[in-house]
């Protein structure tokens, strides 16, 4: 199964299970969890089911397109089921079968991996799912987001699309995966991988990035006062990404790190609080 067929198959599966199919957000982020359809929608009591592909950027993971496993840009397929159904593991297995994994023939393992995002003030418990020792999914029961204990526990299933594709194609080099007949993943992304690695590690201007970080933070505060939650949150995401770029450039010392993370978390928390206030007003 090629990359684009995998996305189509997962969409078909989760649509059948009642998920709203969304698109990834057009702002840089490190994981699908940052998408408002996860970050905000898991707060409060309202049930919510969604699935979407989120392109992710993690500047420190760049390897100039030379590493078969790691890249600073990749795709997550994110599913949120809130509240988490009792048979959620079975549902997940069903989805794997649906995309062509013959579960009975393979070694499937749930290996403890508790998830934490200090920048989002978020924490969850769960596993990495291994297929024949290859990590293909993060499976997490959220416990807390933006420092708030969740009322209805959502289950987050994050498929590493590249990894599942590797497994299905028996091709353990990211860039050699087939995206569609005649075109490889590398054809589409190797060049930008190399360029972004060079930018993040060698060419980015830390002074400029730092200035952006400060100004983005100011915008979050200003826009929250104006009640413009969506725009404020966009700038939280930008803060987070710029911090990751500074980090990749080696411009954040260990001493400064907690302070940076604390500032992003503070901004994210302010957004979450405003969101919950509004939820209360609408009587959710």
């Amino acid at each position, binding site marked *: 199964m090629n990359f684009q067929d995998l996305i189509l198959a997962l969409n078909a599966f989760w649509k059948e299970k009642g998920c709203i199919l969304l698109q990834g957000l057009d702002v840089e982020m490190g994981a699908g969890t940052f998408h408002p359809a996860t970050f905000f929608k898991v707060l409060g009591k309202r049930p919510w089911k969604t699935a979407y592909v989120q392109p992710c950027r993690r500047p420190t993971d760049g*390897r100039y397109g*030379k*590493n*078969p*496993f*790691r890249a600073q840009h990749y795709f997550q397929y994110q599913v949120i089921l809130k*509240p*988490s159904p*009792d048979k959620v*593991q079975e549902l997940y*297995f069903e989805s794997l079968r649906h995309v062509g994994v013959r*579960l*009975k*023939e*393979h*070694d*499937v*393992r*749930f*290996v*403890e991996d*508790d998830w934490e995002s200090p920048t989002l003030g978020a924490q969850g*418990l769960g*596993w990495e799912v291994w*297929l*024949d*020792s*290859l990590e293909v999914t993060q499976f997490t*029961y959220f*416990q807390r987001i933006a420092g708030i204990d969740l009322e*209805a*526990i959502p289950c987050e299933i994050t498929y590493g699309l590249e990894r599942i594709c590797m*497994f299905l194609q*028996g091709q*353990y*080099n990211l860039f050699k995966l087939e995206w569609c007949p005649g075109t490889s993943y590398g054809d589409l992304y190797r060049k930008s991988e190399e360029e972004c690695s060079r930018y993040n590690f060698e060419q980015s201007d830390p002074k400029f990035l730092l200035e952006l970080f400060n100004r983005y933070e100011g915008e979050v505060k200003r826009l929250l006062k104006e009640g413009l939650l969506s725009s404020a949150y966009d700038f939280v995401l930008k803060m987070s990404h710029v911090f990751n770029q500074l980090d990749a450039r*080696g411009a954040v*010392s*260990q*001493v400064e790190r907690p302070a940076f993370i604390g500032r992003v978390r503070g901004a994210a928390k302010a957004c979450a609080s405003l969101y919950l206030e509004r939820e209360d007003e609408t009587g959710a």
Partner: protein
Amino acid sequence: MKQARKEGEFLLEIGTEEIPSSYLEEGLRLLVDTFKRLPELRGKFDVEGYQTPCRFILHARGLPFSFEKEEEIFGPPKEICYQSDGKPTPALEGFLKRHQTTVKEIGEEGGRIVLRRKTVTSTRQSLLKQLPLLISALSFPKLMRWEKSGFRFPRPIRWVLSLYDGKALPFSLKPLRAGTKTYGGGPVRKQKMVRHPKEYFAFLKRSGILLEKWIPEGEGERRRFIREQLEKQLKRLGGDPRKIDQDLLREVTNLVEVPLLFAAGFDRKYLSLPKEILIASMAKYQRVFSVEDSQGRLLPHFVACANGSIVLAKVRKNYEQVLNARLEDAAFFYAEDSQKPFSEKRGGLKLLVYHQKLGTMHDKSERMKKLASHFVREVRVDEKDLLRACELAKNDLLTEMVKEFPSLQGVMGYYYAKGEGETEGVSRAIWEQYLPKGSDAKFPTTPLGAALSFVEKLDHLVGCFYASEFPTGSVDPYGLRRAANAVFRILLDQKWKLSLTGLIGPHFKLFSSDSNASKLQGFLQERLKSLFREKGFRTDLVDAVVTTIDEPVQMAEKLSSLSEMMERRPNDFLAAYKVIERTNNILKPLSLKEKREIGEVKPDLFQEELEKRLWDVYNKDKGSIQRLIHEKAWTEATAQYGHSFSEILHQFFEKVLVNVENRPVRQNRLVLMKAINELYTETVADLAKLQMNR
């Protein structure tokens, strides 16, 4: 409480999503122990506990069907219970009615009505009530919620099977109700109704599920199976089964229900990487076992343990490809690290915080150099080499390889330093600075490595005490007990003769305050004592010998000499002991200050013949005893001491009263006692601390 005659069998299975492997053993132990201690169930019955990553199982046999309990219910004060004609008042009648009893059944105690009676409760009833409490009270390192009741467990509970006496025991846990169904293994779980424990265990067996029984310090069925299969595979591949990573074996045991072992291989070209990288990659990314031959050479194979029934050829191929890709990743890191000059990484340590109050890793490395130059005079290593090793010691923390595999700190430093032309000695020391790691782990093999490790740890101890990061109870986040043990074990292993007090003092001066210096000395002395106790020396002898933290090597010699003497020459030892004990007793009432200022023996104040003789013996034998002590002939010194004084001191105490009225005479006798006592205790051991059963 009395046991009824009939006995029942109870089976509990808590079916969960995969519990973290490190929780399983302790969780099961708690379940079994708490069940055994249920107050209602006191008595003789057998309980076994079993686990898999998805099950906690409890199987109890010989449970009494019911039990009697004596109950005591206090009622109203007696004076308001009876009317003048002896008939019960409404107050008493209310009490009788409430407890469905009659006047004949009640008694009185302390002026109050009391009802004592035996009640019979069935085990079934009691289990129904107790099990939900028991399960919700189990403690684990981390708990989670997954459904609306807010019940907490390490991972979601998906079913509970509960059978008692051949029937369901359907207690309610908040998220669900216990039933009689269980499930098989693997991603597609087969459901099964169970009526009897025998049927249950047979079903698990048929499903290929191997249980790990809880045996203290023991090996259950699943671990044994995996170990035996692993050994078989290793032998076939030419590997040495003695090199099995025991921690990994334990972890793998707790990751699978239906173990299936198979051998596979990786691309030979990666054998050119340091073998530690390969071993760490295999253990971390795939939890597979590397294969080393008896000469310590790594072979291009590994042994994996899969879960469930699989198509072996496909799974093996996938494992191999994943490992090859991972090793490509490692090779990339290694090449990247090797390109950048290792010694130049030191500047980057200024960005790496060691501890908020203790500065950066760069600061630490500078402090290590200072400590090293104090200390190098006392041990036989080359100063230039030791300083160079201190300088490079922490550089590998900035390499990609160590960021990826923190456990390879030191190891990578060795390879990168050596690759850049540092001597084998300096490079080896960088590796060995983290040894010994556990209680019986490997020691540094070279004096330079030992010296670097010693300096690294002593700086850690002084720094953390300066920062008031003391270990408390079982909490020791900075590993200070481990560090202190390592310091002493290295010292003893290298037989270094040095004064720790003399090193700690100046090192505290590098920080802004040495107010915790004596606290650190006390801590180190306690660690030293416990280390000697662990080596098997008697507690009181350790207390007698370990009175400072200086010269631990000499303490070890004293301890083994004196221990041996107590066994082989008990009478000689006892003679010396009695001298110390008696002189100590007579000096006990004196304060430390009095003892210090008591002065010298004045022979002209002697009044009794025995005093003079004792003083003569002291003067005659003092020299030879001191010589033996100086020669560290502890046994002979002790024997000679006892031989010199025990008989005459005995006579002295029979005939001479020390505490006489005449102050100068009394004082003079005490001084004599002190001189005799300290001749031995000041330089060998304060034997008065021994508890001898005579």
